[in-house]
């Protein structure tokens, strides 16, 4: 039971990194980066590629993955955002879909369509705390993701760069008027978001494997997290990511936790990963209909 929850939190921590980048770009540019999911996949495959030539634990590869992915994010902003920044946000949505296709199929051409496993973060095995046995992988994912999120928080709250990022996110024109070089800040946001998505890919690559076509699945997860947490709220997105990951991991193992559910006809069919995903999407639609401002968000009045 505890192991299931720890696995859920580990998945949630990785989703949180993904949702964080999504929401930062959304705040800075009011555009949706549809390639965010494919960036996770790219980070995962990068880790796979690095570890095959250089077999070291994932944690050693992390700085390199962050760096390469940040450069990729910079490139993404140059081809898919800046040429379109004065157009309606939907244009960026489409251009990032295009980049997503390119990433996915490049990965397909380089690595093939089969799932690949990335390097373990610190090494496998289990940790025993008294009677409880926990996977070392899952624990180390939680710790590393937690540290990355804490680092993001520290940068945002306590540095000049962070203040500029926040100012740009709140009011781009005002920030520009105050002499902040908004374009640089936005390019930085893309780099940052891509780096964190790549980190999520590295963290997930060992337990959950990587497939080139993972992207659209991840982008929907990020989107659901952001919708649940309230469009544009960073804290809400992190919490949303955690909630959906817990649901995804706990729901299929419900018959294990509550044995009487195993007797329900069609239990194997009902309590499956696929069904969990379907329920998640339906919940997303329900939230959109009932509370478009998100479960945690406040009502935003639009000016006519």
């Amino acid at each position, binding site marked *: 039971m505890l192991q299931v929850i720890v696995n859920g939190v580990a998945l949630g921590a990785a989703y949180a990194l993904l949702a964080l980048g999504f929401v930062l770009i959304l705040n800075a540019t009011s555009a949706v980066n549809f390639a965010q999911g494919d960036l996770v996949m790219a980070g995962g495959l990068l880790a796979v590629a690095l570890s095959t030539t250089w077999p070291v634990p994932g944690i050693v590869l992390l700085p390199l993955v962050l760096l390469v992915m940040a450069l990729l994010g910079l490139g993404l902003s140059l*081809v898919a955002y800046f040429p379109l920044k004065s157009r309606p*946000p939907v*244009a960026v949505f*489409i*251009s990032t*879909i295009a980049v997503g296709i390119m990433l996915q*199929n490049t990965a397909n051409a380089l690595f093939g369509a089969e799932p690949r496993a990335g390097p373990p973060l610190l090494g496998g095995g289990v940790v025993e705390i008294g009677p409880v046995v926990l996977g070392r992988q899952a624990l180390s994912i939680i710790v590393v993701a937690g540290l990355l999120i804490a680092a993001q928080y520290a940068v945002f709250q306590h540095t000049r760069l962070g203040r500029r990022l926040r100012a740009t996110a709140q009011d781009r024109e005002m920030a520009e008027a105050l002499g902040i070089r908004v374009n640089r800040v936005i390019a930085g946001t893309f780099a940052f978001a891509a780096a964190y998505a790549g980190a999520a890919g590295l963290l997930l690559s060992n337990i959950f494997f990587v497939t080139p076509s993972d992207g659209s699945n991840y982008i929907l997860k990020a989107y659901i997290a952001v919708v649940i947490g309230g469009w544009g709220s960073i804290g809400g997105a992190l919490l949303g990511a955690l909630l959906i990951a817990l649901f995804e991991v706990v729901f299929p193992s419900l018959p294990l936790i509550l044995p009487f559910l195993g007797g329900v006809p069609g239990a194997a069919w009902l309590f499956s990963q696929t069904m969990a995903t379907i329920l998640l999407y*339906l919940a997303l639609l329900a939230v959109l209909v009932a509370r478009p401002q998100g479960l945690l968000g406040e009502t935003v009045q639009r000016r006519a």
Partner: protein
Amino acid sequence: MTTLPQAIVRLGMAVPLAVGAALLILWPLVFSMAYDLRVFTLAGIYALLVIGYQFVFGHAGALALTQGAFFGLGAYVTGILGARYGFGFLLTFPLSLLLPVLLAALIAGPVLRLETHYFALATLGIAQVLLLLVLMAEPLTGGANGIPGVPGVEIFGNLVPRGLPMAIFIWAWVVAGALVARQLLRGLYGLAFHVMRDDPLLGVCIGLDISRMRLVAFLLSAAYAGAAGSLFVHTIRVVSPEALEFHVMVAVLAMAVVGGRTRVAGAILGAFLLVHLPEWFRVFEKSYLIVYGAILLAMIVLAPEGLVGALERWFPPQPAPVPPSEPLPRRAIALAEGPLLAVQGVEKSFGGVRALAAVSLVVRHREILGLIGPNGSGKTTLVNVVTGLVRPDAGMVRFGGTPVTAWHPDAIARRGLARSFQATHLVDALTALDNVAVARVPAEEMGLRRALLSRWHDPALARSRRHAMQLLNTMGIGEAAATRAGALPHGVRRRLEIARALALQPALLLLDEPAAGLSESEQIDLADRLAALRGGWRSPGLLPCSRPCCCSTSRRRV
């Protein structure tokens, strides 16, 4: 005498369209190998799918990601009924249209009122749910393997053979679909879609029922997608979850962007090019999809209007000749006796800012009322409340004796209340004439049925343009009729807005700072015209205005 190039330019798009159609007819005759014909047939199926997608993506301007799902649903309806139960084309085809339309109607309620990314991602979520359900319902759908052995198209016992006959059969459907799309959108209804896509706020203020138009576009695209899905399965004779996967949606989106979002020719060109692309780029083998992505990216950055849009820039269509003017028919609005407009105790706060505090006023019939106040005193907010754009926190608005506080803005506009905007709202790409003509949509009761049943040259559009000409002359800007609104100077744009408001033949006209940004002589001219309107039109106005000079025309001020 005109030279040949001049003559070509004068014909406008007719030349490239004729060349394109000729090439399309020649294509299957030249490339007549079985494999080439198969690709050509596939291009036709995608063309039909993209023509449908243009309704929602191009004309309604909503990035729907369900088109692939509707396509897959149509495919599965035909596949399951055809292969498992042996039903023929005449039964499966209508059902393959109907089911996607029903699904679209079902999800339209919650989803269609969402905007931009909310809408796009919600529709993507629905598409994914459908794919997962198909994978899970293995007894019915065959799961990941799908269902083989779907029969070909059989009509009254005659099987349409593979090869050229099937290609002609599919392309006949493309022609039919193209004609229906053209019929719907070439007239006044198409103009209404243009306004709704470019400026939805303006759309509701001239009485367009935008939610209805969105629904119509969404259902139409579902019907086209279902048809394409059914034909697809009849062509490849097997149905599998591939028909539902995201790459179908991406292909459709790329075709619409590459060809052009609102032109039928663009849909056909985009589908033809992108279906043949993998054949032409054999060197890339499986990674042609990278080229796909690169082309989509390049098009959205470099030529957002698509290839046909770019062609139209080289071969600009001749502007329609300026029509003669024609007086508008009298419009009788049944309004109760008593005050025309009564605002009682209206309050509105934005966050902590109280814009309106217990505002009450009355406008009587045949009266011009001036509303004066400094910047930020809530004049525009009051206009927004009265026209239904902003819902008040408290208070009541009665128009002609009817409480309209809870009404939608488009219903209020149709009831006889027109407005102008403080910052001009005009569709820059349309001519001045069409900017006014589109406000005749409610008067012409233009909708889906009327657009479908109208003759080849939409008489409602011609009539609306003649009426619009009359109004442009009334405002003294008749010579600007054929100019794009974006190219007009500010003073003319102001008057154009008033002409458009008059096209609704309102009982009450709300002019929000009509003189803002005008020179003194322009202001005097405007005041004279408004005074003249009052005599001729029996149309009183409420003039929110902060400048004393303008209000010399108003009899009473608040």
